[in-house]
């Protein structure tokens, strides 16, 4: 009986009160986060993770930019088949993926910025660093959002659900103003060092470079502002800050692993193979699915992918319209051996960034460059052109052409603005092909309707793209269904 009593006591004690407060064991709880320096570091890395996803890893990075342009004719199997044919509608899933994710990454930045305001434990240097990075990254997310969707809701703080419902769209101009404001503050907050001294993270120079680029976009469609001088100032400061060593002598070196973390990359996105999904998927993604693994000298031991920017002889013919362009050689692979051991010659594909090691399919070690020195250089040339700096413009463009093995342009080639824009777009198209720039260049110069016409006609789809509304994607139906914002 006595033993039994003990047993019963044990049974009852087993269930004592106050046990229902369980905190997650394998996840951090948002309560108590954003307090210590290491937590802020982790939170900022979360924002960088957003950049890595949005600009490189997630498919919308190319499906909504490169696939939309005349650099690719996509298959109907995937979402960009409709994007490329200009037959997409608001229900297209990839639009919502882009929308939801970009705003998710904006929110990550907002969480950091708001918590920094309330924080008292960080040093002022730490605060400056994290605020600068959060503003820099937030600006880049909005830069993509505004170029994809045009007029959109502006979220500058963490929102409650109710606030989310009541938020209305802001004008394109207001969004661009916000981007400029963030980048300006970032130039003051971030460390003023060369990119190679602070690889894969934001620097004041990178912020200036992007700020200059944003001004160039503000000068184009739809705002058409005259801020070429502002653009020149920032771009020039970036170029000077980095120095001419940023301009690599060989085009192929730009995409070579040995020039990773070099000053040629004003801002690069860090990648690493064998780190559970931190590798660069770009080279494998652009390789045909049916390539026979291991048959290629360029280290494709894991094969390719069914999704890529699809090229054909027509596209390459118009893209590389001058013979002898080295950029053709280093951007395009013209043949491959497929899994049936046939040599395929009519399906060329992009081979940029195929350098360095990979640990698995789509898991390359090489970083991906979001802002190249040459981009800043050419944007500067463009800004100078509009401020009577045509000589400097020509010098820069010819230097870029020379590197590619092409002959110089003459002053007469760019003596009118129309001619210049045409030449500039052609040069930029060759220099930055498949780097997700072409569509945005076409839109900002308002040439998309004209220049895409023959291309779409070639594929029998010219009637699908007829007005400027299609410069932007519709706000995703899933969001409209919830908020009513169209």
């Amino acid at each position, binding site marked *: 009986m006595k033993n039994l009593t003990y047993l019963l006591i044990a049974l009852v004690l087993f269930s004592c009160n106050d046990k229902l407060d369980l905190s997650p064991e394998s996840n951090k709880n*948002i309560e108590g986060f954003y307090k210590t320096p290491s937590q802020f570091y982790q939170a900022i890395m*979360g924002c*960088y993770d957003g950049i890595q996803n949005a600009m490189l890893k997630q498919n919308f990075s190319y499906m909504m930019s490169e696939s939309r342009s005349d650099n690719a004719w996509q298959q109907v199997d995937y979402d960009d088949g409709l994007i490329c044919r200009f037959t997409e509608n608001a229900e297209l899933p990839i639009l919502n993926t882009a929308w939801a994710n970009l705003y998710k990454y904006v929110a990550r930045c907002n969480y950091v910025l708001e918590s920094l305001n309330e924080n008292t434990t960080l040093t002022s240097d730490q605060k400056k660093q994290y605020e600068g990075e959060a503003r820099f990254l937030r600006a880049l997310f909005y830069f993509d959002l505004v170029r994809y969707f045009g007029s959109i809701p502006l979220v500058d703080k963490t929102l409650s*659900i109710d606030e989310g419902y009541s938020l209305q769209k802001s004008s394109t101009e207001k969004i661009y103003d916000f981007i400029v404001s963030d980048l300006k503050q970032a130039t003051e907050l971030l460390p003023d060092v060369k990119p190679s001294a602070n690889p894969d993270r934001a620097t004041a120079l990178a912020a200036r470079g992007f700020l200059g680029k944003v001004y160039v976009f503000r000068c184009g469609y739809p705002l058409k502002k005259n801020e070429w001088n502002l653009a020149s100032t920032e771009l020039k400061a970036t170029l000077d800050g980095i120095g001419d060593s940023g301009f690599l002598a060989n085009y192929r070196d730009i995409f070579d692993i040995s020039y990773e973390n070099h000053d040629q990359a004003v801002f690069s996105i860090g990648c690493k193979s*064998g780190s559970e999904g931190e590798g660069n998927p770009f080279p494998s993604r652009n390789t045909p699915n049916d390539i026979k693994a291991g048959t290629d000298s360029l280290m494709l031991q894991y094969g390719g992918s069914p999704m890529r920017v699809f090229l054909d002889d027509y596209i390459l013919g118009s893209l590389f319209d001058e013979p002898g362009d080295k950029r053709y050689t280093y951007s395009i692979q013209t043949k491959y051996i497929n899994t049936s051991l046939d040599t395929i010659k009519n399906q060329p594909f992009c081979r940029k960034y195929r350098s360095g090691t990979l*640990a698995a399919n789509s898991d390359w070690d090489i970083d991906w460059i979001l802002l190249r020195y040459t981009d800043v250089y050419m944007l500067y040339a463009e800004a100078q052109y509009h401020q009577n700096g045509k000589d400097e413009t020509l010098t820069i463009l010819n230097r870029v052409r020379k590197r590619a093995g092409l002959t110089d342009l003459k002053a007469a080639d760019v003596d009118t603005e129309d001619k210049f824009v045409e030449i500039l777009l052609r040069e930029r198209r060759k220099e930055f092909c498949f780097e997700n720039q072409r569509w945005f260049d076409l839109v900002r110069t308002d040439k998309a309707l004209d220049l895409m016409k023959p291309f779409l006609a070639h594929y029998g789809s010219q009637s699908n793209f007829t007005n400027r509304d299609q410069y932007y994607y519709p706000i995703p139906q899933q969001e409209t269904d*919830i908020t009513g914002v169209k």
Partner: protein
Amino acid sequence: MKKTNFRKEGLEKGHSTMSIFCLIFLFFLTKNNYVSASQTVADSEQVTVAGIVTEATGIPLPGVTVFQKNKTTNGTVTDANGKFSIDVPKGSTLSFSFIGFNTKEIVVTSEIINVVLEESIVNIDEVVSIGYGKLKSSQISSSIAKVSSEDISERAVVRIDQAIQGKIAGVQVQEVSGSPGRSLSVQIRGASSINYSSSPLYVVDGYPIPGDLSSINPSDIATIEVLKDAASAAIYGSRGSNGVILITTKSGKSGKCIIEFDSYYGIQKRFSKVDVMNREDYIDYAIEERTNSYIYSGGDLSVPENKRHAYKYAIDPLWRTDPTSFPNNDWQLLIDRVAPMQSYTLSASGGTDASKYYISSNYIDQQGIIINSDYKRYSIRANVESQLKNWLTVGLNLSASNSKRNDPNTDSSSGPISRSILMAPIVGLDQQTVEGGYYYYHANFYLNPIHLAKEVLNQTKSNHLMSNFYAEITPVKNLIFKASLGTDITSDKNQYYKTNNVNRGAGSYGNVANDLTQNYLSENTLTYNLNFDKWTLNLLGGYTYQEQTYEYSYLQKTGFPDDDITTLNAGTVLSSGTSTAEKWNLMSYLARANVSYQNKYIFSASIRRDGCSRFGKDNRWGVFPSASAGWIITEEPFMNTYKNIISNLKLRASYGTVGNNNIGNYSSIGLMELTKYVIGSSAVGGYSPSTFSNSNLGWEKTSTTDVGLDLGFLKNRLNLTIDYYIANTRDLLLQVPIPQVTGFSTALQNIGKIQNRGYEIELLTKNLVGKFKWTTSFNIAHNINEVKELGPDGSPIIGYSSDFPVTITRIGDPIGSYYMFKTDGLFKNQEDVNQNKAMAYVSPKPQPGDLKYKDMTGDKEITTEDKTIVGHNNPDFYWGLTNTFSYKGFDLSVFMDGQWGNKLLNLGKKETTQSRGNVRGYWRNRWRSENNPGNGKVPRAVTTENLTTPSDWWLENAAFWRVRTINLGYTLPKEVISKIKNISSLKIYAGIDNVFMHDHYNHMSQTATFSNSSITPGIDYDSGYPLAQTFKLGINVKF
């Protein structure tokens, strides 16, 4: 080519396990004999009474319990010849009882008493488990259904959920897949939750188990009770809203030890097969589709046919010149097999009045009908109970099982079954692998199904241990205190390996996942029973605590030099590794009162208060009350004159509230997710918010009103039970899509209301009761599901599957109704195209033969506004029908079931237009030209956005009826058996499972494999494991 040998284990392990079981058996048997022998009866004026107990037909009845009334310790059972002998005081009363017969009492007047027992017609007053107690069925006023072991023993099943399929009105059990050992979908009275599981709570011998039923041997089951309405389920409070299934395992009865051996051997063969093209049909289709698609994509027709894009548009010249040079493979038949299944069960039960035991062991081995898939399970059980003192009873229920399941991802949407449907007949047996090469015109989209089945290892080994120890103390008369302490521990180990050969050359990889679930339960209840002349009162109060921890770890490696060694030590690159842990706990107080007055008026009320860690701090405790009342009209004096006709008439009404706590463990807490970045050359970890926090998050509550009628006619030859119910679920836990500008796509909130209402009818008739017996049991249920309120502003929820918007959940319609375009036939000719061009969606230039959509808004064009509800996945009716016949030793049962009124969605239809793989047989009737329009429903062979747009073209009719089981048994006559020493009964039986089926979906399981959540129900991807037709032969011997 290298052969990968994944099967190294033989039966050695089985033998060693079996011998351990035998030892346990011996131990219990010896102990029991000792207890029996030590029992002595010492009393004065004893007489020895002997006799034979027989049936009305004169056949002796073995196993009849004979005891002295009011002194239950003095008892015996009849032997194989129906003989008994017992010492009793003269003038005392002997009681003879046996299941299925009316108990007889005889006053001892002579020393020889021969007794004839009469078969009871229907024993309606059986005892029913009600959760934390038992009650006579006549005293029940809520909706509880009961199935006993005899009702479920006829099918060759490895799982309990299979056994109850079609047996209970209002319980919808559907095969998700025919894969061996795979769990079934069980739903009671429709879906009551939008985002969370609609599967019921399983309670095994009083223990609410955390997992499903995979570890329990169906032959250990004594009874299954289903608590269908909220009033009966409310005693399980926050876990009762999907209904509760109470499983009671067998226990020993005092009397002679019964040893039972049951074994069957079955042969399974493919029952369902998808109609696909053969070689000629395929080539014909491929040429047509590729040409059409090439033209559609804007291709230049001057390019030679074989120089167009390889797997999309190019045409192999051999297709035209020499089609017979290709093989004509039927891939579905190449991956299936005729597979055996076998089961062995050995059990022993018995005991004295003081101690009772039931022990069993079972081995079941089911080979799958798809190569390389199988399921094996060993299980043991020991249920023992002993009355140690007259105030103290202790007991232990212990069960353990060990199972191994092999399934090379057979029914995944890119697994071997899907590929056996999609692989074109012209592909060679080893083609479409790295080593066999890929057929140029198909590229490497679809991999070889035979190699996928053979070269993917996906093995899950599970160990399950469940124990529940209890003590019952009776400190004063009629008061019972019961304390129990139980554990339920499951561990699974999954080993996965995929060879480079079937990984498109991306390298072999392997992974190992381990999980461990540990569940603890402590229950303390007090029961007080009072019986007066007219009143009976039964009171219950209790406190319970349950907690569970879950741990998971996972490792993946790549870089295997070859496929000889598939364990991870052979891999060179660690590509992924993680481990996580979770916990929940639940604290509850409960109380119940059952009152009966003159056995006429019955009343019951219960209340449970639950606190659960899963809910927000500010809303952690919930109260779940219920009440029910019944009136047994046949007990009223005025009914006496009708008693010959109406033998039982009971009216019931109940109301109760139950909850649902299946929301994940930390849903109320804002969580941070691990996000990573790379700086320079090192990966660094970061954290980002992943969920909104909601400290108000509370229970989903279902309140059910149930009215029912139990009717028995003609001495209960005909029994009818009818229930009507309305179940309102409010505070739905909804993953509400929120404005994504907040940075989150959804947030979990208590919003919305759903109603399930319907009726259930169960009919049991004894059509013939003479020597030839025939009984019929029929059940049918009808449920209407309707969303009543939704979200903050009532806006509908669109359900996405594979990124396609396919369902809608909106006010006034069932959850997850299929919402898409309605097709309106085909464009008949160019004139039709010119006139109705706008009746196509997306595709800017429809052609004759393309699908046409219905303009629902009347605005003369097709936009998203024209989508409409084109069907839903809730059957209007589902039913089961069992007929049993018996004559002398023969018994035959025929079980049928079916449903109608529901649809399912085949997402595979979006892919199967493309000739890079095979296409379904319906394409034979496609539109080819205006003069050859096929059956007018199937469009022309071309891949356009038109076909990849969700429309009712993707829907399938899920109505079916089937003869599920026919079982024939023969029990050897007792006079024959009695001549065989030690054997008291011997039965041989044979049966067929899945005899015949009438349906519209290739005899596949009519529940889709790909997705079956409330919000996207019934979605298939042409990948379901085929159902098997099983022929079995078995034997059952009792010693």
